[in-house]
């Protein structure tokens, strides 16, 4: 036994020292490379800037290694905006800088797919978006599908709501924040679908998130579904209706928002207070004043906030 312990400890220690030595060496080489390639990184950056502005490029820049060019593109993509950025990413695609990541998305190794998504999600280019869409549709790992969905949401490129619900099994998910964030991202482009789904009894499980998203469509026509949701027996749906009405900022919602100030559910009353403040409903002042004396601390606090917004008082008077 003693021999096994001695041998085991020695082998383990030797192995770890070797691994650490190799990692330190790798870091040292990387530092040297950075020093040496500093010039190359600058050259690659200049070459991309020149190409963006259709100016002549130094021939030597074409020989710069792919990782350095990718670094240059990553750095520049954080600095450039609009058409210059689009052109830069187009050039990177043309140079095949994303090819490795695109191939890795099909890899059987989860780690490689994670790294590929992390790279591609930085570029709102059709090729990257397509690859992320494929990941969302077919990757076996839920967390990776979700990561792809978040990236597509950021670019405003999520699939239609019905597909998204199915791909991410949102009807069985209990994560309302994720549902809401994704539906809100869809809202500006998918108002009609969201309205249909909000009326469809098959989608009751995600109704609160769908109603909330209607507020982000910017379409006053959605107020029909929103005001209907304000009478829903589920308090989460009523809260969502209030958030949506506050976001739309339409005074047409005033009657039912004021009515919900007397709702039986504390959370609904809190949302109603927030909504009344956002919509600047001065006619709600008497009810809000009454809520400022509520036995619930949370309601009193939100009522005081609403009063402060509706009837700006001297700061010192607020507690």
């Amino acid at each position, binding site marked *: 036994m003693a021999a096994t312990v001695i041998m085991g400890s*020695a082998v*383990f220690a030797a192995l770890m020292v070797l691994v650490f030595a190799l990692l330190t*060496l790798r870091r040292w080489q990387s*530092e040297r490379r950075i020093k040496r390639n500093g010039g190359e990184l600058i050259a690659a950056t200049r070459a991309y800037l020149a190409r963006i502005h259709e100016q002549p490029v130094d021939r030597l820049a074409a020989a710069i290694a792919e990782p350095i060019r990718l670094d240059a593109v990553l750095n520049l993509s954080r600095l450039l905006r609009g058409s210059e950025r689009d052109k830069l990413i187009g050039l990177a695609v043309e140079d095949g800088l994303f090819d490795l990541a695109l191939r890795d998305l099909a890899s059987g190794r989860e780690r490689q797919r994670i790294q590929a998504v992390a790279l591609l999600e930085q570029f709102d280019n059709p090729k990257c978006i397509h690859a992320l869409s494929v990941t969302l549709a077919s990757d076996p790992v839920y967390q990776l599908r979700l990561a792809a969905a*978040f990236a597509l949401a950021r670019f405003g490129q999520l699939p239609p709501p019905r597909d998204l619900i199915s791909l991410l099994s949102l009807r069985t998910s209990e*994560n309302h924040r994720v549902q*809401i*964030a994704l539906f809100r991202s869809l809202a500006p482009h998918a108002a009609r679908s969201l309205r249909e789904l909000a009326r469809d009894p098959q989608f009751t499980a995600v109704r609160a998130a769908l109603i909330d998203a209607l507020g982000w469509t910017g379409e006053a026509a959605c107020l029909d579904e929103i005001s209907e949701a304000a009478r829903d027996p589920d308090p989460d749906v009523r809260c969502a209706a209030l958030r949506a009405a506050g976001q739309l900022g339409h005074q047409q919602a005033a009657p039912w928002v004021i009515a919900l100030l007397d709702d039986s559910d504390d959370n609904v009353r809190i949302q109603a207070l927030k909504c009344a403040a956002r919509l600047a409903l001065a006619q709600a002042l008497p009810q809000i004043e009454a809520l400022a004396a509520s036995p619930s601390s949370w309601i*009193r*606090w939100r009522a005081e906030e609403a009063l402060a917004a509706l009837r700006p008082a001297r700061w010192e008077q607020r507690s």
Partner: protein
Amino acid sequence: MTLPPHVEAAAGTAVLGLFWACFVIVLLRNLVSLIQLGVAFWDFATRIKPSPSNLFLWQRYADLALPVSVIAPAFNEELSIAQSVRALLALEYPEHEVIVVNDGSKDDTLATLIAEFGMQPVRREQLAVLQKTAILGTYASPRYPNLLVVDKENGRKADAANAGIGFARMPLICVIDADSIIERDGLMRAAEPFMMDNGELVAVGGAIRIANGCDVVGGTLARIGIPRGFIPRFQVVEYLRAFLMARVANAGLGMLLLISGAFGLFRRSAVIEVGGYRHDTVGEDLELVVRLHRHMREQQRPYHIAFIPEVVCWTEAPAELKGLRNQRARWQQGALETLVRHRSMIGNPRYGRIGVLAMPLLILEDVLGPPAELLGYLLLPIAWALGILAPDIAIAFLCVAFLFGTAISIATLALEETQLRRTPTARDMLRLGSAAVLENFGYRQANLVFCRLVGIKRFLKGETAWSAVPRAGFTAP
């Protein structure tokens, strides 16, 4: 004087038996570390880091990001409090309030806050009274609407944190030390698991690093460095081992028992439900998490406690032996107090893996481990001199104690390099690597004798005093 042969034989057997017990305990501790290392490697390999897209969406839909009350208990912090509060107010987060609790400071901490931030007395309702001492006043500022200062009689950190929790209005509370340096986006990264959660998550711990040797400007970290002194440098290795290996693994296995007092994010309702921090222990951070586990499991409610290995916070480590002794003795005493208080959980299947695995491992780590290792060092030469210990057994013990321990530390450094890469240069890696070897020759043993045993002694004597840890302060470039 010669002993009768049968007494001599019995004494020899006792020494040998004791030595073997120590050997087995030290071996078990190292095997547990090895398993934790493997789990941590696996966890790192398969985890999806919070991506810029996630953070972008939570920023865009700011009302979906759960608001946070950051609670900073402060005692005699007049020199650094203004900078610290400015850094806390500047954290990148959609909605957060900062509650500074002046815990009866004897210096001008309160006056500094009032002057620097234009604080004025206000009436603010305390939603839950968890503290034992009196609240002397609350102050707010028209210039900084998300800052609240609570002035109270001196208690201890637990009491000050409880007072702050009572005033917190946000659904999440982040309890920190007043001198903790939180990374600009640290709060967002720590709160992100709550956004992705379905309501079962009750707390999140984050990795903490040592700020000694770093440049700190305006309460924020300007440059990462490695401490010059060996005592803080050894602690860098220890922190990496604790946070990147043990806590990542324990969280991955659903048995995280400790969220450091320097930075912890909790669901406010859960903390209030269990009554906040306990005042009668010096290990209130460990005790709170154990109590949360206990409460949730007794109520048979689904819950989990997470840990994010990315660095969220930097803290100053004691640079002198005296400060180190006070800190470590306190940790040791706190662990023992928690174990005794929650002894009914130990080995109890009612508490699932917390009772059956995590608590026994805490005993191995904090009750049996330190004295066993120390006793092993003492018994080894005695047993050898008596001729009752085979040389290969002695070498095996030394291998387990020194070689294996060093290998675990170096493996953690490798983990850091492959996954986080926050060590600035290859040269700094070598410095930490050498510290990982050198700590085995004196530092670890000193830690056992002067720190752990002092903690055990204080626990046995039932001491309740809080030993201060002197700080040297941060350096500017």
